[in-house]
């Protein structure tokens, strides 16, 4: 390979890396910004009866879930977060010395799991409270 050709090859944009890092970083950022308040309100304050929350009554919950903006928000939140979680948990196993976590099958399992959750989320959002 000539030097020019080698340089051209070396400077080829790494689109796969770009995609996975985009999903990882934005998933982590979005989860950091909005997940704690979801857990606090829907998981603690609502069930304890301290504040009224949309998912404590079926009619209000269905009504909110029927909004397309809410559907899009929940899809982005869940899908991006799971790509972040998949990356973190795979590298946690690598850090614990599980060499198999670096392998292609492990990548398929972790990132494929995020894809499965994304598809399940799309299906659930489309079939629950249709627009």
């Amino acid at each position, binding site marked *: 390979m000539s030097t020019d050709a080698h340089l051209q090859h070396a400077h080829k944009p790494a689109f796969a890396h770009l995609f996975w890092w985009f999903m990882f*970083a934005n998933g*982590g*950022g979005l*989860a*950091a*910004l*909005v*997940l*704690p*308040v*979801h*857990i*606090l*309100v*829907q*998981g*603690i304050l*609502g*069930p*304890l*009866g301290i*504040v*009224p*929350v*949309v*998912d*404590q*009554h*079926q*009619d*209000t*919950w*269905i*009504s*909110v*879930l029927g909004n397309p903006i809410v559907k899009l928000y*929940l899809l982005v*939140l*869940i899908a991006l*977060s*799971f790509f*972040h*979680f998949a990356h*973190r*948990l795979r*590298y*946690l196993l690598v*850090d*614990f*010395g599980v060499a198999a976590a670096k392998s292609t099958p492990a990548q398929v399992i972790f990132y494929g799991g995020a894809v499965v*959750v994304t598809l*399940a*989320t799309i299906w*659930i*959002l489309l*079939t*629950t*409270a249709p627009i």
Partner: protein
Amino acid sequence: MKAPAQATRTAPRSYQWTMPSSWWLRKRHYFLYVLREFTALPMALWLLWLLFDIKSAGSAGFQPPRSIGFVVFSAVCFVFATYHSYTFLKLAGVIMHVKAFDRPVPPRLVVLTMFGLWALASVVIGAVLIGFAR
């Protein structure tokens, strides 16, 4: 073909170093790093529950989440989620290189902005979740 003894003598020897399994307990920083990475698991579990909650909204036997077990589970997830937010947003000053008027924005200001966004997003999401309830 070499004799077995000779083959053993000339075979490349490699040093197989393995990390002790308790490496992450040796220093506080290591432990906090592993804790930060682990936050993904409880957050993933809570989001899976949210997905289940969305799915059950359409069923006839809808039961709102009110059990004490669920509250305890959420409280544990909340601690991990808050730790994730703190560590992730604190890193924003290192990761994000923002320029304004051709001058780099100080990392501290980037971090402050991210924490401000966290507060704002929390207020807005909280207001929607509570405000649209009856």
